[in-house]
């Protein structure tokens, strides 16, 4: 099996190396062929792995590939842990990645950095696979940071744009704030377990829960809670939870294919995956779970609200992603890890679909991203329209589509949960359903229905490099097959993935991987009432989330189709609410002034005052001057006159004689 797993990981890496280092030699076709071949191999083999683990009842695989280093008795290793949880992630990652690779052929067609782009998305696939397949904290952290690196390089792919290179630096540094905590979390784990291996650490979870650490004098904290919260802060940056979410909307500066792959379907879900993987630890700390629950709920609701006032099509989808990540986080907090993972999977499909559909629209309109200059595209782009409709319905949780099952699972689970904060979270995720439907269909109607506003559009301001030769005002047309085929292939699981609700949510699919304390096992209790997919749908239609979603959809239709002036009116009546949302609650301003500005001012002051003035001028050069001054005085004695010296000698002699005589 090891060869198989290695092939899955290394095939994309090899593709990345060929396309990246020999891009000029292999050319464009060579670059996309080799990377697509690499990812396709990974995908096919992941299917085999999934079949082996999920269907054929294969054993959990947990082996070391090689020893990274051994020091002080602690082994740092690279190795794979493959169980159903991993197998599912591998399938999702390689499938979405393959779709995005194919799609990129069309999307990046004219870009001079074509080969570089393919190299990077393949490198990303490698890194992400390393992350999900890790059997230890070292490799987890390697994958964790490697996906961050590729994300950095891809957000700044168009490195001439000031906004892009601002956004990628911001993304990396904010993620580093999370990693800062993450590393400390690993430190806490190794402190207790003296091992980085998942299984060895999990085996000591109970003793770790009893161990304490004194962080502030006089207070003893559970070491496990500290570790769990620190690790989760890492997840908050990677999976963009408030208040470390600020980088994700800006990451939309990157080309759309990576927004779909990295900033919607896979990398940003790494935090969710990590917490699920660590469920044997988190289950011992209700405090950490509570923290997760509250953070997730805040993100789910308040980030969704911002989506209501965005006009950039990609940013609407980005805020939607933030909100959906919040849902997944809430599921984790409610100990419904399986529900979180299930939503992670369905969301990967329909959100990648929505991003790629948005990209298709952006291409058709020659890199126009402002929804106010779209509209009525339905008849020009039938395939994009149909697939976007499926994606949107899946996102709002329309019965029968993938998102319905996974989101309902989360909401029901939170409803039943008794973890502190669950009621608060329940109210927010419920309200979030309405908001989701509203912003989703606001976008959908603004783009595909209504008046055709793109014809009198002024030339788009910041469009992509290498695409400047668009012919504005022409009739938009459907995208080429390399774009539409991935849309269709993603639309299929966006409809069907939900039907796995039985085994994934209520069955024992994740039994090997996830651990849930019996007292908090809400999914098991939900599962008692589960009577098949149809029953689940019928039950769902009678529950508030469905009606809230319909209400959101209806409101969107009424406001943006029937009475377009209402939106403006709402904005005029509640200017403060609009302002708060438009400024995204002021996180960016706050960070700019306090953290970025503060660090720069402090650095400047330390340099000017500490290094330059105090150490260099006063102490170093000061002592040089002092020596100079003293020797200047002493030099006065060295007159060069013989009688001065003779006189000094006589006095000296007298002093000595007297000293000895007395």
């Amino acid at each position, binding site marked *: 099996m090891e060869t198989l797993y290695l092939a899955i990981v290394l095939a994309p890496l090899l593709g990345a190396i060929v396309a990246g280092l020999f891009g000029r030699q292999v050319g464009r076709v060579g670059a996309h062929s080799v990377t697509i071949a690499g990812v396709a191999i990974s995908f096919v083999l992941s299917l085999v792995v999934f079949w082996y683990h999920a269907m054929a009842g294969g054993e959990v695989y947990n082996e070391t590939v090689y020893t990274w280093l051994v020091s002080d*008795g602690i082994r740092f290793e690279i190795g794979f842990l493959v169980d159903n949880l991993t197998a599912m992630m591998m399938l999702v990652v390689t499938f979405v990645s393959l779709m995005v690779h194919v799609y990129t052929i069309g999307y990046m067609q004219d870009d001079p950095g074509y080969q570089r782009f393919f190299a990077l998305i393949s490198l990303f696939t490698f890194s992400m696979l390393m992350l999900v397949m890790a059997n230890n904290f070292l490799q987890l952290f390697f994958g964790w940071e490697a996906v961050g690196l590729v994300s950095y390089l891809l957000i700044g792919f168009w490195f*001439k744009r000031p906004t892009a290179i601002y956004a990628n630096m911001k993304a990396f*540094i904010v993620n580093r704030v999370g990693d800062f905590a993450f590393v400390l979390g690993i430190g806490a784990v190794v402190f207790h377990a003296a091992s980085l291996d998942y299984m060895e650490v999990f085996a000591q979870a109970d003793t770790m829960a009893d161990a304490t650490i004194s962080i502030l004098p006089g207070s003893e904290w559970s070491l496990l809670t500290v570790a769990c919260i620190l690790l989760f802060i890492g997840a908050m940056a990677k999976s963009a939870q408030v208040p470390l979410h600020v980088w994700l909307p800006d990451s939309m500066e990157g080309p759309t294919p990576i927004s779909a792959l990295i900033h919607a379907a896979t990398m940003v879900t790494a935090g969710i995956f990590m917490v699920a993987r660590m469920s044997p630890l988190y289950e011992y700390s209700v405090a950490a779970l509570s923290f997760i629950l509250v953070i997730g709920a805040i993100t789910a609701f308040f980030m969704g609200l911002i989506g209501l006032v965005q006009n950039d099509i990609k940013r609407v989808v980005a805020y939607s992603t933030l909100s959906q990540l919040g849902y997944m986080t809430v599921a984790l907090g409610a100990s419904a890890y399986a529900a979180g993972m299930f939503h992670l999977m369905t969301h990967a499909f329909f959100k990648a679909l929505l991003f790629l559909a948005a990209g298709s629209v952006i291409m058709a309109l020659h890199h126009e991203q402002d929804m106010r200059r779209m509209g009525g595209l339905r008849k020009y782009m039938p395939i994009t329209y149909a697939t976007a409709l499926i994606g949107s319905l899946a996102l709002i949780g329309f019965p029968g589509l993938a998102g319905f099952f996974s989101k309902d699972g989360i909401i029901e689970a939170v409803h039943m949960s008794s973890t502190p904060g669950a009621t608060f979270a329940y109210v927010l995720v419920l309200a979030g359903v309405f908001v989701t439907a509203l912003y989703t269909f606001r976008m959908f109607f603004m783009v595909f229905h209504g008046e055709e506003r793109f014809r009198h559009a002024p030339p788009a301001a910041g469009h992509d490099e290498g695409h400047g030769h668009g012919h504005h005002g022409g009739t938009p047309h459907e995208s080429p097959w390399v774009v539409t085929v991935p849309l269709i292939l993603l639309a299929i699981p966006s409809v069907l993935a939900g039907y796995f609700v039985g085994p994934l949510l209520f069955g024992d699919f994740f039994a090997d991987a996830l651990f849930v304390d019996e007292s908090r096992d809400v999914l098991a209790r939900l599962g008692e009432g589960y009577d098949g997919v149809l029953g689940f749908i019928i039950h769902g239609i009678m529950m508030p989330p469905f009606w809230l979603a319909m209400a959101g959809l209806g409101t969107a239709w009424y406001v943006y189709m029937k009475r377009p002036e209402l939106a403006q009116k709402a904005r005029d009546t509640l200017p403060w609410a609009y302002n708060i949302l438009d400024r995204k609650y002021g996180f960016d301003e706050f960070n700019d002034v306090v953290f970025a500005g503060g660090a720069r001012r402090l650095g400047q002051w330390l*340099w000017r005052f500490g290094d330059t003035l105090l150490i260099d001028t006063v102490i*170093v050069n000061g002592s040089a001057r002092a020596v100079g001054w003293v020797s200047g005085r002493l030099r006065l004695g060295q007159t060069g006159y013989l009688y001065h010296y003779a006189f000094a000698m006589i006095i000296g002699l007298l002093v000595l004689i007297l000293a000895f005589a007395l």
Partner: protein
Amino acid sequence: MFADWPLLSLVIWTPIIGGLIVLFVGDRMPEASRRLSLSIAVLTFLLSLPLFALFDRSTHEMQFVEWVPWISTFDIHYHLGVDGISMPLILLTTFTTVLVVLAAWEVIQYRVSQYMASFLILAGLMNGVFSALDAVLFYVFFEAMLIPMFLVIGIWGGPNRIYATLKFFLYTFFGSVFLLIALIYLYTQAGSFAILDFHHTPLGMTAQTLIFLAMLLAFAVKIPMFPVHTWLPDAHVEAPTGGSVILAAIMLKIGGYGFLRFSLPITPDAAMALDWLMITLSLIAVVYVGMVALMQKDMKKLIAYSSIAHMGFVTLGFFIVFMIYNNTGDWQGAGLGISGGMVQMVSHGLISAAMFLSVGVLYDRMHSRQIADYGGVANTMPWFAAFFVLFAMANTGLPGTSGFVGEFMVILAAFRADFWIALLAATTLILAAAYTLWLVKRVIYGEVANDNVAQLQDLNRREFWILGVLAFAVLLLGVWPAPLLDVLDATVDNLVRHIAVSKL
């Protein structure tokens, strides 16, 4: 066949004698000097390889030992040997010297043979520092090393080189005088100048404290630690590229090496009593110097400050050990800290060499080190940009590069000592990312900033290979550090066992 060669003498004297020959070839034949220097540097590197290959990883004992009586009256001998701590540093020296000779190829046109000779002789002296087991021999190499570097900065340096050389020389000389006093005192106690005898000499607390402080002055200046670090940015800014590379990659490591070879084993009780001071200064280096690095306008100064911050990790790893013991009651984790510091030294040798060589590549073309003069270099130098981003990432400690290994080990070790120490140390993840990536953003990315940038030529073949080799080394050590740790393990274990026993 190599086993019975005097390998250590060879790696010391080949470059020194070779350097003298290059000097005689003279400036009239610059091309011949270059070729000869490269051959000597490569030969020295090849001669150092058996040290790694034949190294016995299972023992902490000194290996490749050579012993020849020198000044028997005072029991001073030509005594050489290496263990797991010094051997990797010798390899780093011989490796870096090859790169430095190559990097000077077309760049240095003024007094070529003297430039090359300085670096060759310097390399021999530094190998001497790392392999000397006699305190006087060590001291001779330790001081002699300053002379070539003094010349390199003073002759081939920038406009303000006189101030920088004086500052560099006086600072380091000031420190090492105290070292000499300490060594002479130790001789009176141990009855010999053998460093290994010093390790086993019983010393009272007062003596230990004084010796520790005297040595601290010498090594703290070298490595350098806050607040005796301000000579380094000045020296780097004025030094030619090769000077900066050797300074950052090797000479700083001599400070760290001194702590392991002298301070910790000779004065363990004083080190234990004063560990709070060392830890505080290390953390100041990480946090304060990291902040200062953020605001630098000169690329070399920025990298110099970054070096100081990274060396903070080295000293933190070395001196965290006692606190681990006090906090947890056993020495588990101490070896992790010391090994982590050692890995950080080797890794920083590679990364800082790469960073300074990269800045050198830019400087050779634009004759400016000011960040503000650049912008959008990626447009005209894509290969260079790729290398620079890689080294920048290594500098921020990205996993998969060597920069990560040592930092990770030290943070894990620090957590065993105290949560807050680990927390302050871990801020490097944020600070290093901030100052390094901001540098990348301003220099590499963006639109072409001005006509000079527009006319930049990408790397030539020589530059490509120099940076390529370093990139390979940085990645190799990041992906598979085990070979280095295998070398360190027995020696570090022994060191921890040694310092665990009080000398009082």
